[in-house]
Each structure stands twice: as C-alpha cells, then as structure tokens.
C-alpha cells in the first residue's frame, strides 16, 4: 500500500480517479474477510449451542422389539401410585397383579387406574397368595411400609422375581442384610428405590463435575437439608377404615398408625430415614466413601410425641475419610419450616456444587482463585457463568477484604420425566439384561447403615463410630 504515498496527486483529481483499477478492487473488498471470520465464529458458537441442547435432551431412544416384562405391584399407597404412574409411561410392561391390604381403597384405586390403561390385573390382599397363583411374573415393585420390605422382598426373590424395593431398604440392618443374602442366593436383581442414582442431573454431575473434571478441587465439607413445612397427620375416609383386628394382623395398632407408620418406632424411621436417606446416599456416592463417624442432635420438639415417636428434627454431622482426605458433612431435616427446601451442597477448595432433585436447582460456583472453567463450559458440562451481583454500594456495608462472590454456572441437564421413571427404566432394562442396576442391594445396604445410625446417635447423645466392616456383608 505504499503506492498511496506515491500517488497523492492522481488520487485526488483527474481521469485516473474515475477509472476503476485493481487497487480499487482490493481496497473495496478489503474488509470482506471479516465476514468469513464472522461466519466461522458463528459456526463455532452454533455447534456449542447444539452440544448444550444435546446434553439437555437426555432421553434414550426406545429400543425396538422389546420383550414384555410381566409386572406385579406390592403396596399401592401414595408412593405405589407415583411409581405406577411413572411405569405407565414406560413401554414394554405388562401389569398382571396388584396386592395391597387396604382392599377397599388403595387396591381398588390402583386396579381402576390400570383398567383405564387397558391392563386387566388380578387383585390380592395377601401377597403370598399372589406369589402362589401368579405364574409367569418377571418382576415386582414393592412400596409397602419400611418394616415390611425385608419379608416382602425376600419372599418375592425366592419366588423367582426380580425386585424393585422402595427405600428405606429396611427399618433394621438385620432385615437389610437378609435381603442382600436372599439376592445373592437367588441370583435375581434387587434394586433399591434411591431414585437420584438414575437421575440424569445427578449422573451428569457425578461423571463430569466430580469424576472427570474434578472442578470442585478438594472437597472438605458438605452440607444438605430437607426442610419441610408443618403437615397435619395423614387421615383416611371414615367409611373405608379397616377393622382393628385386621390391622393388627399386619402389624398396625390402629388406623392412625396404619396411615402414619413413618413416625412410629418399629415401623418406619422418621424424617431422617424418610427424607435424609435419599441425600445421605448422595453424600457417600459423590465422596466415594462411607462415613467413619456420626454425631447427631434431634428430638420430637414440635409434634405430639405419642403419635410421633421418631424425631421431627435431626441435625447430623458425619466424618468421612475420602480418597482426597478428611471431609465433614452436615445434614439437617426438620418438619416445621420449608425455607430453602431440599438440596445437597459439595464444597471444594476450587468450587461449590449445589444440586437438588427439585427441577431447575443445580449450579456450580467457581472460587475466584481457582483455574478457569472455560474448557468445561465449552464442552457443555456447565453453562456459561451468570455473574452474581455484588450488593449495591451503600445498601450493605462492603468490606474490601471480603471475597467477591463466585460466578454461578448452571448445570445444563434437567429431567423432564417423572422423578422415578429413569430409576424404574434402569431396573427394567437390567431385567432385560441391557443395563447394570444403578442402586443394587449392596448400595442400598451401605446407605441404610449410614442413615439408621443417626437415630442411634441421637439416642446415645454422643459421637458413634462406624467400623468399616459394618458396611461389608
């Protein structure tokens, strides 16, 4: 472009000026390559967005030529109904039989629902009769109260069925141990209903955030909670009340206990078992180890202790020896206030992961001093950061020594199906031999060991240690 200097005279006036020459073309199109660059950048941006969308659509293709699985349901109360509704969305299932002792109410409801979907099923009050009469069953889904799980599961396994059993695996460790034994002896599958183990968001965070990238760094502390608003005791329509002698036959003193079994010793485990076990299961999964000790404070502080034998409030501290070193985990469940709902929070020296089964809740926060996460954003493991606002000056006294809040990266994976569907799908795919169980009996057992000791620790009023052998069968 030196000629610009050489030809100042010609460029301003004269004939030369009007003719279009080579130089004009070059200068006229000089900025065109920018469009090429723009196109390339746009292409890159679009492939990134596409990758993010693909990660979002986590649904697996429905395999063709499914062989039907013959299914029975044992216990169709509140949770049995939830599971049934999820199963009705899974192809390749033939419902054959339903069993529940509340024949006039829950059993009828389930049979009617199945009828609407053109499944004709046999209804049973006694599960033994069902196992005797129903030949050709492949699998059973058990959602009876916790204290029935061991007996129901063991008998079903021995009858040759694969079993999906709701958590808590059992209300006693002895029961849980016998369930694992029966599984081993029969060689059948036993999946425990900790459904977060199959939740795409939880799997994504475990595989990408925890394992592959280790973006949180060294995790030294964990916290989590399930806070629930005050709830009245569960009632029943008076005209469907069951006679006391029949209730007693099945281990319940009266209708109130039959409906609110969770709160009673010997039947359930209270909120720490009911709610906490889901989340304490995640602690062990993500930390890659079982706890070594537990301290806990709890009690029935708010509700009537006669009908709430188990603690309505529990605050728990676990210690873990993880492959990375010592970690402490706090867990709280209470039933008098719902602030902040339920979540688990893993805190490493490079970042924080907040995750919840609740839709839309899942974010990673990078510590300001940590290495950049750009690569993980590019790969679609986490979303581009949303910068958290620093409080406006003046509204809060800001201290220069305070650390700047970490950027929030949303976890780009969500579940748009019913919560329990992926876990049930995993079970049925395992029955077909196409997948491994995400929560086999031994994992359910380890979680039961960790969780049931909380109630013991509250009673003992001191720190209890776990012998590593307790987790091994």
């Amino acid at each position: 472009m030196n000629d610009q200097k050489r030809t100042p005279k010609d460029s301003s006036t004269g004939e030369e000026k009007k003719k279009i020459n080579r130089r004009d073309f070059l200068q006229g199109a000089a900025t065109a390559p920018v469009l090429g660059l723009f196109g390339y950048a746009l292409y890159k941006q679009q492939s990134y967005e596409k990758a993010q969308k693909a990660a979002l659509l986590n649904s697996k293709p429905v395999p063709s030529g499914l062989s039907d699985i013959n299914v029975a349901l044992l216990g169709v109360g509140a949770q049995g109904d939830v599971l049934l509704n999820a199963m009705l969305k899974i192809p390749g299932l033939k419902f054959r039989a339903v069993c529940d002792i509340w024949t006039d109410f829950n059993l009828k409801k389930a049979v009617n629902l199945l009828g609407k979907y053109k499944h004709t099923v046999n209804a049973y009050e006694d599960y033994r009769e069902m196992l005797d009469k129903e030949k050709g069953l492949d699998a059973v889904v058990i959602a009876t109260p916790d204290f029935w799980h061991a007996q129901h599961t063991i008998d079903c396994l021995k009858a040759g069925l694969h079993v999906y059993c709701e958590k808590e695996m059992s209300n006693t460790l002895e029961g849980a141990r016998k369930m694992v034994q029966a599984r081993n002896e029969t060689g059948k599958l036993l999946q425990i209903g900790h459904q977060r183990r199959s939740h795409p968001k939880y799997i994504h965070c475990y595989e990408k955030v925890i394992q592959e990238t280790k973006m949180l760094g060294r995790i030294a502390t964990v916290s989590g909670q399930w806070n629930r608003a005050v709830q009245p005791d569960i009632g029943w329509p008076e005209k469907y009340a069951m006679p006391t002698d029949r209730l007693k036959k099945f281990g319940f003193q009266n209708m109130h206990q039959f409906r609110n079994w969770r709160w009673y010793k010997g039947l359930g485990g209270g909120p720490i078992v009911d709610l906490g076990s889901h989340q304490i299961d995640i602690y062990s999964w993500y930390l890659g180890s079982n706890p070594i000790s537990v301290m806990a404070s709890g009690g029935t502080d708010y509700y009537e202790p006669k009908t709430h034998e188990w603690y309505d409030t529990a605050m728990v501290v676990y210690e873990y020896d993880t492959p990375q070193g010592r970690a402490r985990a706090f867990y709280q469940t209470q039933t008098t206030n719902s602030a902040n709902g339920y979540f688990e929070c893993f805190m490493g020296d490079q970042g924080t992961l907040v995750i919840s089964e609740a839709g839309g809740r899942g974010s990673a926060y990078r510590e300001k001093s940590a290495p950049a996460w750009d690569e993980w954003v590019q790969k679609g493991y986490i979303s581009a950061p949303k910068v958290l606002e620093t409080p406006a000056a003046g509204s809060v006294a800001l201290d220069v020594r305070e650390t700047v809040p970490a950027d929030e990266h949303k976890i780009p994976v969500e579940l748009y199906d019913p919560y329990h569907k992926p876990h049930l799908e995993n079970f049925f795919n395992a029955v077909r031999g196409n997948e491994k169980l995400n929560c086999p009996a031994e994992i359910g057992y380890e979680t039961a060991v960790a969780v049931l000791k909380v109630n013991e620790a509250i009673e003992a009023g001191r720190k209890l240690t776990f012998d590593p052998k307790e987790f091994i069968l």
Partner: protein
Amino acid sequence: MIDEKKYTKCQLNAIVLLRVLIGWHFLYEGIAKLMKSDWSAVGFLSQSKWIFSGLFKWIAANPTVLEIVNQMNIYGLILIGLGLIMGCFTRIASYAGILLILLYYFCNPPFAGLFYSIPMEGSYLIVNKNLVEAAGLLVVAATGTGKYLGLDRLISKWIKK
C-alpha cells in the same frame, strides 16, 4: 468523498477498525435474535421508563405492531451490520444504526432514579455503552471510510462513470 490526504493512513485504518467492530456487533445481535425463534422485544419495551415509555409500551401491547418492530429490528441490525463491515452505503448504515441505538437508549435511559427489572451489567449514569456505540457510529458517518476501504469505493466510481 473522503479526502485521503486529509487523514493519515493510521487514522483511516483506526476508523475502519471501529466501523468493522461495530458492524460485527450489529450483525451478531441481529443473527442471534433471528436464530432464537421466540425472541421478542416485548420484555425490553414493556420495561420502558421516562417520557417515551407510553409509545414503547403501546408497541409492546400491540401484537401486530410488535411483530413489525421485531422484524424491522432483526433485519435492520443484520443489514446495518453487513453495511458497516463491508463499507457499503456506509453513511446510510451509520445513521440508521445511530437511530436504532438511540431508540434503545431512550426506551430505557440510564438516568438517575430510574430502575429496571432487566438486570444490567456494569454501572452507568446517563452515558452507557449504547450511547458510546452511537458516538462511534457518528465518527464513522462523518468520515465515510467506505470509500477508503469498502465497497463504497467501487460504488462511487460506478456512479461517477
């Protein structure tokens, strides 16, 4: 006609750089909205504050008008962006760009005491990035660098012929 003797090469190239960068920004703003099939100015317009808010809110409340405004905005951004990058009808593109930016600016002006529910990054008082970009376009318009580096060079010669 730009007087290439009046400015040094360095000055001209700097203005071309400014022009191309602003063009890139316009082009991508337009294309990004085009690709987001559900994009609409409705959120932005209905937040409007200050003396013109009546007009902007009327647009937001009027589906047909809103649709026209949305389309004009998207294709306006794209055409202005292309014009600025390629140096094609540079002056027209610059003035159109200024007009568009001032519309954004006056829809939600960063004046003392006005707060918006759409979160804004950074801190602004009266002058915000919109206003700076508009001023940048004024420089581009005033110097007309399309005839230095850009299609305008060819266009003007054709016309003169």
